[in-house]
């Protein structure tokens, strides 16, 4: 990429072009100033912290500890558990987070459905509800004794309905259910892109005798793959940083039995409860690198499975 060098050509531009470039830079500099102050400098400071021994809980002379904090992570079993918790949750949350909004969008796109506009608005509605309020609303529904879900299950003859948020295993599906109120945005995006699939493709598939499933697999899914890719990337970035819901649900205790001690929650505890700034900083950088690696991998893999209409496909 020569783009950085391109920036340096500004002084050599003709006066009119130079004025335009400088005016434009003045406008976009608002973001870059904020980026330096609130993102780049703190990020580098976090990196510097991670190689030091800054710890507000115990006063020690400041010194450079090299990779000490990173080595400590390798032998920290609580951290390993926290990473495991995050992965377990991700294994349920990611597929559900992709499939449920997709399925809802396909349903809402059905040409036989009446009152489409109404349903679209209603499925989006909970997206604007503050998540703290959403947690308390779903929490009541999931209540093992008084919640409607278990009352319905008992009425249907289920002997021991799950303990939901109180059960170390059921807590993950419960958290996924708590997250369902956030699907609105994804539903609208999928719906808009479903409507963007050219009808000629469906007509062609029909002529070729393709059934519902074959059409879905060979027309709809490939045409939707850029949007699915977008959701997947944002979903993964989000799931690595997931902790706000368990923080509110369990007051940050990680109950039941540490099952909700997510990686990010552990990290914030390291900062705010144990006040071990340098160790927390190292965890933050590991998280950043994990996200970076996964994102780069996804972008690399996208050329094999994401289809961009109008571009020639390689290979």
């Amino acid at each position, binding site marked *: 990429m020569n*783009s*950085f060098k*391109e*920036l340096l050509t*500004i002084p050599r*531009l003709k006066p009119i072009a130079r004025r335009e*470039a400088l*005016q434009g*830079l003045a*406008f*976009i500099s608002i*973001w870059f*100033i*904020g*980026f330096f102050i*609130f993102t780049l400098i*703190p*990020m580098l*400071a*976090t990196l510097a912290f991670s190689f030091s021994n800054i710890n507000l809980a115990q006063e020690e002379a400041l010194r450079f500890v090299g990779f000490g904090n990173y080595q400590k992570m390798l032998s920290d079993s609580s951290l390993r558990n926290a990473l495991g918790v995050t992965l377990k949750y991700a294994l349920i949350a990611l597929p559900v987070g992709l499939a449920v909004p997709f399925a*809802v969008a396909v*349903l809402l796109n*059905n040409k*036989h*459905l*009446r009152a489409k506009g109404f*349903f679209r*608005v209603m499925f*989006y*509605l*909970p997206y*604007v509800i*503050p*998540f*703290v309020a*959403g947690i*308390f*609303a779903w929490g009541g*529904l999931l209540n093992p004794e*008084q919640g*409607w879900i278990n009352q319905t299950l008992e009425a249907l003859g289920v002997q021991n309905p799950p303990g939901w948020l109180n059960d170390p295993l059921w807590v993950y599906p419960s958290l996924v259910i708590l997250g369902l*109120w956030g699907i609105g*945005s994804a539903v*609208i*995006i999928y719906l*808009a*892109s479903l409507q963007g699939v050219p009808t000629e493709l469906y007509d062609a598939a029909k002529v070729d005798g393709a059934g519902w499933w074959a059409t879905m697999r060979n027309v709809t899914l490939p045409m939707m793959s850029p*949007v699915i890719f*977008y959701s997947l990337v*944002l979903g993964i*970035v989000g799931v690595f*940083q997931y902790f*706000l819901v368990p923080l509110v649900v369990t007051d940050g205790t990680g109950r039941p039995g540490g099952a909700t001690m997510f990686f*990010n929650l552990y990290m914030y505890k390291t900062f705010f409860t144990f006040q071990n*700034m340098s160790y927390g900083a190292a*965890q933050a950088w590991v*998280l*950043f690198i994990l*996200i*970076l690696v996964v994102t780069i991998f996804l972008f690399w893999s996208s050329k094999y499975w994401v289809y961009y209409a109008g571009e020639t496909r390689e290979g």
Partner: protein
Amino acid sequence: MATKQANETLAPTRTFSARLARGLREPSRSFIITFIVVVLLAFFLSPLLRITLNSFKTPSQVAELGTPLYPAKARVVEYQGKEYEIYKVPFAEGVRELALYKKGRATSEFIDPANLDAPPIVWTGAWRSLDRAWEFAPTLTNYQQVWDLLDYPRLMFNTIALAVIGTFGTLISNILVAYGFARFRIPGKQLLFTIVIATVFLPEAVTLIPTYTFYVKIGWIGTWLPLLVPAFFANAFDIFLLRQFFLTIPREMDEAAKVDGAGPFRILRSVILPQAWPAVIAVGIFHFVYAWNDYFAPLIYLSTRPDLQPISVGLARFNSIYGNKPELTQAGTILTLIIPVIIFIFMQKFFMQGVVITGVDK
């Protein structure tokens, strides 16, 4: 030739019968698919229904088992200065609603609320197995209590102030930055834009500790500044949304204004903004809802100042104190979500447009 003709004569009949079959099938298909979606939606929104209903119930109704789903109170009848509860009593000729007058193990005596002077009716059976008669009776006391306990007017003022100031900053800064990206020829602009978009993937945790430490040093903890100042420096999502929209506005109009001697701010104000208002409104309401929803930043920066906290932090605190009084916490939850929901209902068109611009044009 002959076969072709035969086909032509056949064709209309075939389409007619197909249309007839479809005409018969269509309503029932519509019904089935609409029914499925209604059931799904009912499940999806049931938490909302449950807390709405519960927030109007008395504490005793929430705690008691076997009470109706809707806010209700047991019907009673006054007889000789005393209140008697009304039960649904089955008789051979049908169920009658009678007041329990004298409780007994094997037989009980009931009086008819419609005819109090008649002698008591004796019914054989265990009165405990009977269902009570209920009447719809919502109570507003939960809301009255929560209003004060939650210090609702204070929280509401904080939330609205934070949301309005933050929305103002977000709009100004993002409009300017998006304008810079959409309308100026800058060498290397593509790379700069890529950097902006890449920050979507940055985890917040990686900047938190130094930022927090810095805010402690400059005395911003316990003030609104950490929540408001960053909003004035634009963000990747809103820049992207506005830039996409600005790009759809024909350039010729800018050029014409430029020829007339209009400067960049003038062009932005008189040419771009009047055509971009759907996107501008979308960014504004998204930020407003975001600010209403924001929990973690106000939690850590305002933990020492409950009087400055917004409603989401206030609600979480309220729930940890009054968790054993569900009727109160549910009224509080309703009070928290009601304003974003009302805004959404009036502005839903702009929400939908905004989502589509950011999500699909990527």
